[in-house]
């Protein structure tokens, strides 16, 4: 009987000890869970932050592309300006190369709208007044 009582007492002590260690494990599990939550939160924040950084990086990239496009456009404009200057210079040189003339030769004589006409000239050659018109048809 005494052995039986001793055995029961030992069992109770053992059971009590087991229950005590189980209560101590609970805070550890809670801490792990809280840590996991924090890590998850940080991960979410990092995930959320990463797209934001990508979004923030895009304007820079766009800006660089815009600058490159602007530089290319400026380069093209410079080339066009140089070509135009060359063409203008060439036209001026052609004009300067032409032989000087005092009077152009009179050619086919006819009548235009009732008035004596030659190439470039309307009217009588001995008229006291000469009206000279420098024009461009377009």
């Amino acid at each position, binding site marked *: 009987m005494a052995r039986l009582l001793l055995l029961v007492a030992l069992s109770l002590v053992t059971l009590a000890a087991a229950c005590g260690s189980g209560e101590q494990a609970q805070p550890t599990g809670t801490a792990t869970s809280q840590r996991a939550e924090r890590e998850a939160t940080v991960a979410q924040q990092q995930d959320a932050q990463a797209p934001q950084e990508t979004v923030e990086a895009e304007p820079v990239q766009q800006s660089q592309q815009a600058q490159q496009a602007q530089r290319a456009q400026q380069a093209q404009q410079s080339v066009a300006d140089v070509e135009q200057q060359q063409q203008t210079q060439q036209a001026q040189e*052609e*004009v*300067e*190369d*032409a*032989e*000087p*003339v005092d009077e*152009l030769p009179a*050619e*086919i004589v*006819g009548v*235009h*709208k*009732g*008035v004596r*006409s030659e*190439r*470039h*000239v*309307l*009217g*009588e*050659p001995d*008229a*006291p*007044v*000469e*009206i*000279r*018109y*420098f*024009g*461009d*048809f*377009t």
Partner: protein
Amino acid sequence: MEEAIRTGLARYEYRHFIIFGAASEFAAMATECAGDQGAWWEFHDEYLLEGRARTFTRAGAIEIAEREGLDIAQFSRCIDNEEHRDRILQMQQQGFAEGVNGTPTFRVNGEPGGRSLSAILDKVHQAAEAAEAAEGQEGG
């Protein structure tokens, strides 16, 4: 101005002064090619007075030439070979030499004639009076 020309008071001379590029140069050359066949003034009127921009092309020039009864083969050869290019450049040079820097520019007996018709006519009458006075002095 037409009356001054018609009555023998003045004669009118046209000089090409190209400032608007290829179309202007083509129109000038086509007019000169027409001049080879006695139709210079017909082209002048068509281009300057009528101002039909669509005719400042090869096809447009040939259309006018056909209407004026010109020899189209000769006319086409002339414009394709730019036969009067030098003549036009010479006129341009003459304009520069006379101080012309734009169009339209009028000179009346070599002097600036102004841009309005009334200003030009005033200059014509002044020049006619001056010429008459000079002639009177020579005769007297």
